[in-house]
């Protein structure tokens, strides 16, 4: 019998289970886009049949990092920029967990940028949601890696001379298997995208546009958005890497021109996840590693058996 009975438990899951009454109330500013992510995630998880105890959300630091403070599942609120390595390892140790990492654009594209490249490249089976509000929220409005060129803030008083990062193109280049952009102002799409991402077997990167009315009042670009899957103008084959690359290039340009395209950009339906690759190489245990510590009958290998070559 498994030592983790919440995992794979078959039952009807009520959305409210992710929000018990005595949870702390969100401290986000009124009108903050972060509410949209929380809501979409709370809706998506029961719909994909995951109960709160088999979900592990791992966040960084920032307004966005508080996501799991308001979501009642297993949660790990880590440090600025480091949610991905923590999340990756939890998933490796227990692949049966549903691991969702989340954080801000400063968190994920700035300080944690290196981890994003490598997690995408390795195609770990997990979901990563980046709250992209084009600004540092929690530390009061400084310019972030996604702020548009010319963005003025207390730390870039003359306007930023830096070209904003193209996070999704970068993830595609690195090797992520599922890439999408959605927006808090589009709750239905957001929920659907999160569901797809969770069910995807590989690294799913969602750039989630979240408005920050407190520090980024000018960021009107989140409205109007165009759902590329709904619009006839933007037909492209989401399984074709080259088409996806072109599409993302286009949308990441348009983001700063006031027209926002959202939707699913790329789905690699062929490449195996990292876990699958590692299993094929014989470098992953057959059963979740963690289970073994609860198995009284397991025969633990000893270093004593390795001594032959030291004689």
């Amino acid at each position: 019998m498994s030592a983790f009975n919440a995992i794979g438990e078959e039952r009807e899951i009520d959305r409210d289970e992710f929000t018990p009454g005595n949870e702390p109330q969100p401290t986000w500013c009124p009108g903050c886009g972060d509410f949209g992510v929380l809501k979409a995630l709370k809706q998506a998880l029961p719909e994909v049949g995951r109960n709160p105890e088999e979900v592990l959300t791992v966040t960084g630091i920032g307004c966005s990092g508080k996501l799991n403070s308001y979501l009642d599942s297993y949660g790990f609120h880590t440090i600025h920029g480091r949610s991905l390595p923590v999340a990756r390892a939890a998933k490796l140790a227990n692949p049966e967990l549903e691991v969702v990492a989340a954080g801000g654009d400063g968190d994920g594209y700035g300080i944690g940028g290196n981890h994003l490249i490598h997690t995408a490249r390795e195609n770990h089976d997990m979901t990563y949601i980046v709250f992209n509000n084009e600004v540092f929220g929690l530390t009061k409005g400084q310019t972030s890696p996604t702020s548009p060129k010319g963005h003025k803030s207390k730390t870039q008083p003359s306007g930023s001379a830096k070209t904003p990062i193209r996070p999704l193109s970068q993830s595609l280049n690195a090797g992520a298997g599922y890439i999408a952009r959605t927006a808090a102002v589009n709750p239905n799409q957001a929920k659907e995208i999160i569901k797809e991402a969770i069910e995807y077997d590989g690294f799913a990167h969602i750039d989630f546009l979240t408005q920050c009315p407190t520090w980024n009042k000018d960021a009107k670009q989140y409205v109007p958005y165009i759902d590329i899957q709904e619009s006839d103008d933007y037909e492209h084959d989401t399984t074709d890497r080259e088409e996806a690359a072109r599409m993302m290039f286009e949308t990441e340009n348009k983001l700063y021109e006031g027209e926002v395209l959202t939707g699913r950009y790329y789905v690699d339906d062929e490449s195996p996840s990292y876990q699958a690759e590692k299993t094929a190489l014989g470098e992953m245990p057959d059963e979740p590693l963690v289970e073994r510590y609860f198995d009284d009958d397991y025969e633990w290998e000893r270093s004593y058996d390795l001594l032959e070559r030291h004689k």
Partner: protein
Amino acid sequence: MTDDELIWRIAGGSGDGIDSTSQNFAKALMRSGLDIFTHRHYPSRIRGGHTYVEIRAAGHEVQSRGDGYNFLLALGDSFARNPKEEAVYGDEEIKPLSENLDELREGGVIVYDSGLLEEDDVAELDLDERAEENDWHVFPINLRGMAKEHGREVMRNTAGVGVTAALLEMDLEHIENLMTDAMSGDVLEANLSILRDAYKMAQEEYEFEHDVRAPTGEHDEEQVLVSGSNAIAYGAIDEGCRFIAGYPMTPWTDVFTIMTQNLPKMGGISEQVEDEIAAAALAVGASHAGAKAMSGSSGGGFALMSEPLGLAEMTETPLVLVESMRAGPSTGMPTKPEQADLEHVLYTSQGDSQRVVFAPGNIEEAYDQTRMAFHVAYEYQIPTILIYDQKLSGENKNVDESFFDREPNPTLGSTLTEEELKEAAHEASGKFMRFQSDPDETENGVSPRSLPGQKGGRYLASGNEHWPSGHIAEDPDNRVLQMDRRKRKIESIRRELDEEHDSQQTYFGDEDADLGIITWGSQQGTVEEAVERLNDNGHSVKGIGVSDMMPFPEGEMTEFLESVDEALVVEMNASAQFRGLLQKELGRYGPKLTSMLKYNGNPFEPGEIVEGFEIRLGGDSAEPTAQVRFEPAAGD
């Protein structure tokens, strides 16, 4: 200086097989019943450059590399000789024969490869004169030519071993057996015939006027030759560690490699990741999810681990890190040992952060204390660090095989099962109280955890200060309760170490002595030998090798310092870091302490410590000849 021991040095170009040759020769000596200690010296370079390995073999126990050496097998530096190679290596061609020749003991033996070392170069060394002065016995032998005759020039090492065996009047049996185990086919045949020919040639052509011979010894148990890195990896494996994440950095790479080679075969996981921040963060993530996990690095990489280390502490995630020191600051001297990261390891990471730090003093302790580090980390949900250095990492010593014959201990410590979770105190809120702060309920500071995926145990782990439920809190009363609870863990660990385990400190020498030597980490064996010699020389000295850095063994150290009038604190750094710790914890004994420091990239030799003791505490007033510095007691 005892001559019932052999200190055999093989020197040559790195990449020339010095390592494997010496490893086999060391095993052959071990199989003949001797105690073995090996010391490896290599430059920070991939190919070329001068490298040597010393094997000390004796019929008695050996704890250090010893002083100097009495047999030199000098091969040429084949890389430096390669005319196509553009790099200029100065006089490195001759280095295997010249470097540290002063350390060759009187009556010592030199075999050099006259097929590789040019006569003109050798002439510059005034070898004949010096040999006469020191009663050295020099054997120029064309090892290269001998190997070439068998069509395998690279096997000149084997020819050297054959000649060595003859000159030491050793039996070839053990060497042959080792070769047979390790090779097969043509390679084996060629090696065996080179070995035997060289042996026979030396026996027939030379007169053995020298006194150096292979000592005799007898072990009553099966012996294994293991390195400090092996011992750490094996301790981790026996404690149920099945997850490691790392990024290469000398000298930690050895532990990482050994674990990586073994874990997947045992259903474990090894991950080489993008940097050390990630490496430590992965270990935290895996441990949070319920695996026994470790990571590690050397100083520079450990600097990057400072934040995940603090995260593990605040979220009370068990974490084991190993830190293998090398000379710094910055990239320093990558292949040279130093003990200068102690303060880095004790105090890095923001806030009133606390961790447990052990510094094993030898290979057996490296194994035991790795196991202890896991035990403490998982029982008390706290980061533990094993600090050691390049010396301990790379040296090999023979250990009774039975030493490793122990039960595995794969328990997750204070982690609840789903059954236990049902009974855990969370009726009031209906929520599992992960970070229980009630002092009555958490006397030893530990609040048991649940694991993601377990029914009834969900909670938020946060690197921010938090309520018992795990949610972020800045409430002043809660802050004090949580802080005090986390601090209680360190006190409880100290209590457990004192009450339930034999001391991790090692005592040696004359119990009633008024003078002492204190050391920590890898210098312990060397100091042990020095103390033994001082007592043989008529002094009365006691010594202690301290392993517990944090929590500090206050009771034991008070007792030791009370019992002596003066003590020498021996460590391998320039800023007397361990003495600083003693001073911080037990400042009132400050005036009794004199530091003896060495930081030139080479570990102490026992003779240097004997000399240092005699100059500072033993009444001698000479200036030290060794590359060591004294730093007298405050106010001195």
